[in-house]
Structures are given as C-alpha cells and as structure tokens.
C-alpha cells in the first residue's frame, strides 16, 4: 500500500515536472490588488519561454510611470534549465474605482498566449504610502528629479532654459543612472547643452533642505507655438544603494541595492503669443535683443565690378529662427542670391552670435545708386515691445561705364590707357546761361492777340475782295463811257457832214474839217496846217495801229480828191460810216 502510494507520488511528480517543463506559462502579476490613489502598482508579465510580439494591455485609468522594463533570466539547476522573461510596468492610478487591467498578448512558438485580466481596486489616497521602514519609503523622501524651467510663461520664440537636476541625500547614494525616457521637445526648437560628466554638488538645496545635487541635463528651448505646450517628462532609472538595518562584521551597515524609477512628470509651459497691438506689418519674427547693420565693402567702384552688401544681425535671441530682411536696391543693379552665414553659439542664456546675409551686387551702368535704409523689427521680451532698427542710407558711386538709357559705349578689348571716351556717357555739367521768363505769363495761344492776328487777314481778304469788286466795276463803266463818248464825238463831228450828205462838195468839205477838228481836239494840236504824213506820224506816236492811221489818212485823201475832182465813184454814205468807225476806234485806243 505504502509502496503503491510512493509510486503514485513519484509518478505524480514526474508528470508534474514534465508538465512544468513542457507547459508554456504566461502570467500577469500585480504587486497588490488594492491600493491607494497615491500608491504605485507594479505589474509583471512573466513567461517561461521566449516569446515575441509582446503586446501590453491598454492601461486605462493608469498612468505608466516607467516601463516596460525587460528582464530575462536563465538558469540551470541540476541540469534542468529554467527560463523566465519579464516585462515590468510601474503604474499609478488616475482615479478611484475598480478597474480591470486587460489582457496582454505574446506569441510563443507560433501561438498566441494571453494573460487573464486582473481586477484592481483603487481606494482613497493613503496617508503614508507604503511602509516608512520599507526601502521604497526611504527612497521616496530622499530623492527628487526636478526640471527647472527658467521662465514657465515665455513669449513665442523667447528662449527658455530647462535644467534637469537630481537631488538626493543621505542615506541614499546613487550608483548608476540610465535614462528611460527622453523628452523630445516637439513644439520647441531645442538645443541640448552638453555636460561632460555629471558632477555631484554636495551643497545643493531643495525646498530649503540640503541635498546633493546633480545637473543631469541642460536644454535651451525656443517655443514655436503659442498656447499650453507640454514638456514631456524625463524619466531616469536609478540604481541606488542604501544602508539596510543589517550590519557587517565591523558594525557598518550593509548597503542594499535598489532600483528606482524617477520622473519629472509632465510640465506645462504657457507660451504667450506676441502682442498683437502695435505689431508692425513686416515683423521679422525675431525675438530677443539685437543690433542691426548694413555694411558695404566699397562705396566707389567701376561698373561691372562687384561689391558686397552685408546685412548683419548681432545679438541674443532666436537668431537662426527668422529670416533677415532683404536688401532693396535700385533695379539697375544686378543682385545675386545672398550667401547666408551664421556664427551662433548656444549657451545657457540662449542663442548668441551673428547672422548675416551677404549679397553680391554688380552695377551695370555708371551713376550713383542709393541703398535705402532697411528696417529690422524685433520683439524685445524684456521691454515687451517691438523695436525697429534702421540701417543707415548708403550711396554707391559707380564712376566708369556705360550710361543707362543710352546705347552703351563698349570699347571692348581695345581699351587703351587714357582713351577719351565720347562725352555723352558722363554726367553733364550745369548750364551757365539762361534766359528767364515770367512763370505765369500769358500764353500767345488763344490769347486776344492770337485771335486778332487770325481775324485781321480774314477781314483784309474780305475787304479787299469787296474793294476789288468795286474798282473793277468802275473801270468797266469807264471804258463803256469812253466808247460812248467817242461815238458821240464822232457823231458830233460828223453831224455837220451828215446834214449835207446830198451835196457832195459840201459833204466832203465838212467831213474833212470834221476829221481835222477831231484830231486837233484829240491830239491838242493848235496849228491849222496838218500834212497827211504828219497826221500819220502823230497817230503812230500816240500808239494807234498803223492800219487805222493809214485808213484815217486815206479817208482824208478821199475827201480832198472828191472836193477837187468830183467823180462818179464816190460813195458818200460809205465814207461817213467809215470815218465814224475810225474816230471811235482811235478814241478807244488813245
């Protein structure tokens, strides 16, 4: 019976150990199932086979203080291998109540294992979390990790420094530190200041008590966003040694090693927006305290040479976080893209140094080119005001080269010394002589004089046309009258002859006399004697056609012939008409 029992037990153990060997376990263990609000909870996820894809539960209602910390142990005891791998989290509850920590998952040998959910009860905060005699308790009161922020309420882009300090005091001493969680400063421009070796300052104070102080890290931050920005916590895993109650042979306390995770917790930085009031339009975004200058490397040069203009900002502030104002030069200058130079040092007090933009400028034409002053606006957080700096106005004198607006006189390669360039490419001298005129003198155009001068010719033309018409009429009358008079005259002289037309001898006597009398009257001849040749000569002298004069003489001859030799072939009527005609003709021609 006993033997049977022994066998039974033996076989049971064998099966058990076999089972232990073969069976995979994956468990979650908590340090306590009931805890105060201000206490911590440690949770271990332990497995006895190496697994992958560990997937922790969502620790709802809990905050992870640290973790996961991974620990692997492997041991052989009497040839039996044991293995364990543990993921450890430290949690603090966020609120009171009953909570369930969900299932964690892990893949072991291709199969997914899950832990069972654990119920946790969170009660009111306990006055003294944990036992003061406990190691944990001793640690908690005597070690602190603090993030000191120089200004928790900065302006946007105003530099702040953050110093992480570790305080500890007796009886704790720190033997090893490792960083579990490093803040990434998401909304900040950040710069970590290197600290060569952590040095322990034995005379630090924390909350009025003396502590050993270690500066763990320094960072310079420039907030890039306004509003409440969260600084992620820095979490350190410390290996501490602290004396236990036990003593060694010599009565010294035996030091015990203890792990401690310590965190700064989240910090909130309230970043103020720059004041909207009086905010200049072309504010560069620079915050700090700056000097500003514009420097040229030469003021006088030839065209097509180059000069450099440097826009320089020197000072303290977010130097590499804003754009420098751009240069503004006459458009006839060729400006190349600026070269950006930064000589910046980041110290605990912020960014310091010089930033400059160096422009290369090539003038094309000769002349003077003003470089107007450039304004640079920054915000001074100390004075809480915008400040505007102006560079001085500069003038570049380009003395040789083509003139703009005129065809360029490019002598090219054959530019000998002292060659006299045509003068039309240089600035001209003033004029020495002038003829001044009254400024607001009346202009001739559309003045009374102007209109008068236009009307005078018109009046002149009209009157002259009228006059001409009148005079022409008169002259026409004269000729007609002359003709009439001549006819009348002829009639008068010939009338006596006409009366005696029946008596041939008397008729011709009267006709001859009439013709003579007419000539005497017309030519104003006094003498009675008139030879025929003389008559012809006189008439010709008066400008009378030869034919007419000869006809006239012929008629007189006819008369004489008819008087002294009365013939048959004599036509008295014809002679009368002819002489009348002749008289009027002569009269018209004289």
């Amino acid at each position, binding site marked *: 019976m006993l033997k049977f029992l022994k066998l039974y037990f033996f076989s049971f153990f064998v099966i058990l150990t076999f089972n232990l060997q073969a069976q995979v376990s994956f468990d979650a263990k908590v340090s306590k199932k009931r805890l105060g609000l201000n206490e911590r909870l440690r949770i271990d996820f332990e497995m006895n086979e190496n697994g992958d894809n560990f997937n922790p539960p969502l620790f709802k209602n809990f905050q992870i203080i640290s973790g996961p910390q991974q620990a692997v142990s492997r041991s052989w005891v009497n040839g039996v291998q044991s293995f364990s791998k543990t993921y450890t989290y430290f949690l603090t509850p966020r609120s009171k109540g009953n909570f369930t920590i969900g299932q964690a998952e892990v893949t072991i040998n291709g199969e997914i294992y899950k832990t069972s959910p654990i119920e946790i009860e969170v009660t009111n905060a306990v006055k003294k979390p944990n036992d003061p005699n406990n190691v944990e308790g001793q640690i908690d009161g005597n070690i602190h990790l603090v993030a000191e922020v120089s200004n928790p309420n900065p302006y946007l882009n105003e530099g702040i420094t953050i110093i992480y300090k570790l305080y500890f005091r007796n009886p704790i001493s720190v033997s090893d530190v490792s960083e579990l969680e490093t803040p990434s400063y998401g909304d900040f421009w950040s710069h970590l200041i290197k600290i060569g070796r952590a040095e322990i300052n034995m005379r630090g104070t924390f909350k009025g008590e003396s502590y050993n102080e270690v500066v763990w890290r320094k960072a310079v931050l420039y907030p890039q966003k306004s509003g409440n920005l969260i600084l992620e916590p820095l979490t350190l895993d410390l290996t501490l040694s602290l004396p236990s109650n036990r003593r060694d042979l010599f009565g010294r306390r035996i030091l015990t090693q203890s792990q401690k995770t310590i965190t700064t917790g989240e910090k909130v930085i309230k970043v103020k927006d720059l004041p909207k009031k009086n905010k200049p339009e072309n504010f560069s975004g620079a915050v700090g305290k700056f000097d500003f200058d514009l420097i040229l490397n030469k003021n006088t040069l030839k065209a097509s040479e180059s000069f450099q203009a440097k826009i320089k900002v020197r000072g303290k502030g977010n130097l590499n976080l804003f754009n420098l104002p751009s240069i503004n030069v*006459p458009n006839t200058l060729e400006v190349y893209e600026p070269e950006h130079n930064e000589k910046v040092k980041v110290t605990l007090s912020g960014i310091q140094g010089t930033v400059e933009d160096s422009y290369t400028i090539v003038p094309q034409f000769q002349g003077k080119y003003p470089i107007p002053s450039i304004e640079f606006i920054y915000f001074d957080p100390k004075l809480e005001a915008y400040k505007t700096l102006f560079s001085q106005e500069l003038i570049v004198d380009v003395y040789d080269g083509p003139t703009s607006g005129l065809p360029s006189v490019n002598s090219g390669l054959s530019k000998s010394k002292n060659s006299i360039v045509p003068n039309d490419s240089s600035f001209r001298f003033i004029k020495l002589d002038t003829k*001044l005129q009254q400024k607001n003198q009346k202009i001739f155009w559309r003045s009374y004089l102007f209109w008068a001068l236009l009307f005078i010719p018109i009046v002149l033309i009209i009157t002259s046309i009228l006059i001409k018409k009148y005079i022409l009429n008169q002259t026409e009358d004269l000729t007609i009258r002359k003709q009439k008079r001549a006819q009348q005259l002829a009639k008068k002289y010939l009338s006596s002859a006409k009366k005696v037309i029946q008596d041939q001898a008397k008729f011709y006597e009267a006709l001859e006399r009439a013709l003579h009398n007419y000539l005497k009257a017309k030519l104003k001849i006094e003498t009675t004697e008139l030879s025929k040749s003389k008559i012809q000569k006189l008439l010709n002298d008066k400008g009378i056609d030869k034919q007419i004069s000869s006809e006239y003489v012929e008629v007189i001859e006819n008369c004489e012939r008819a008087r002294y030799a009365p013939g048959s072939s004599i036509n008295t009527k014809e002679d009368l008409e002819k002489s009348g005609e002749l008289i009027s003709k002569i009269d018209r021609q004289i």
Partner: protein
Amino acid sequence: MIEKYKFSSLKSILFFGATLLIQNLAFAQASMESVFKQGNSAYNKAEYQKAISLYEQTLKMGQISAELYYNLGNAYYKLNNIAESIYYFEKAKQLDPNDEDIIINSNFAKNMTIDAIEKLPESQIVTFQKKIYGIFNFSYWSYLTVILFWIFSGLFLVYVFIKSASLKQTFFFIALGILIFFMISFLITYSIEEKEKNTNFAILFSNQKDIWSEPNQQAELLFSLHEGTKVEVLDILENWKKIRIANGSEGWIENASLRYLNNDIFR
C-alpha cells in the same frame, strides 16, 4: 478845367506806374539772372545747398527757364535727393524736351530710383505723333499757326488781284496748300494744349508707398513704389489717389506725398 487837370494827372500817374512796373520786371529779370549765375558758381564750388537756395530764390520770384530747372535737378542729384532731382529734370524737360544734357542727366537721376518701371511699348502712331509734336515747342507751334495763316492770306490776296489766268491758278493752289498746313498746325497746337491740360503727372516724394487695388486697406495689395517714381494721377478720393505708372499699372495710393508736374505754360 480842374477835372481835366485831374484826369491828366491820373493818367500821368498811371503811365508812371506802368513804366515803373515794366522797369521793375526788367530789373527783376536781370537781377534774377545774376542770382542764377551766383548759384552756378556755388554749384561749381560744390556748395550744392547754397546753389539750391539761390536757384529756388529765382523760382520764388516767378522766374523760370529750362536751364534753371536743369541746374536745380543737378544740384539735388549731387545731394542724392532722388525725388527732387527727378522732379526738376522733368520740369526742365517740359520746357525743353529735346535738350541732350537734360535727357542724359535725367537718366542718371532715374537710375537712382529703386523701381525700374519698363515703359509700355508705344505704338508707331504714338511715336510718330510725339515726333511731330516735338518738332517745335508749344509757343512756336502757336506762332507758326498765325504765320501760316498770314502767308495764306497774302497768297490769297495775290490770287484775287492777279490778272494772268495761269498765275492765278498756281497762286490759288499754293494758298490752298498753306491753308491745309495752317489747319494741321492749329490742330496740333490745340491737341498739345488739351493733352497738357488733361494729364496730371506727379513725382512721388514719399519714401515707400503701397499701391492697392481699391481705395481701402482691405483691398488687395498690388505693389509698392519708392520715391522718385513718375505717376499720372487719374482720380482722387479723400486722401486716396488713383495713379498710373509708366508700365500701365494702375492702383490706389494713400496719403502719398506727390508733387505735381504742372506745366508752367498752362497753369
């Protein structure tokens, strides 16, 4: 008798006053020309500020000339006062548009401005028109108009009185041609006057000004101009002015310090 005496004395006073006035004017002109000369020597000694004050003294007396404006422009150029310099060069150009010295130095001054404004390309008609208009200055055009009319009248009278039929015909056609020239000259003079009266050019004296699409700050910001830019003022609304620049862009400018380039001949 007494009245007559009074009248004659009044007349003599008037006469005396008139002669005095004329003498004064002539005297002023002569003395101002000597001030101009003083300005020139000050300029030559590089005392530009002094030269400017002397020249401006002449201006204040109402005496002007293209040379005076030109020298003022030069003096301001030497002092790097861009806007003033450009302003006076433009004034000089108004009085003498074809002077080479004025054109060259005006280009130097324009070089100093920040903005390079490309002129709109002119149509051939406009350039031709400008060439024609620029043959004489304005007062010569008006004299020419009158002279052409007198020539026409003379020729017409000859046409009226001449007896020979063939000569009559030639004189008639010559007179007709001159009449056409007279009309062209009249129209040109008239249109020059209209153009000068209806365009309001000004020089911007403000350092830097923004040009907006509408006369309020909510509108779109179009571009900005710097001092020395020549603008044409098209409209005015309160303290906003609508302007056009040489490249044809238009916009509104607020509270700008503009100095008008009023032609001294017309206003």
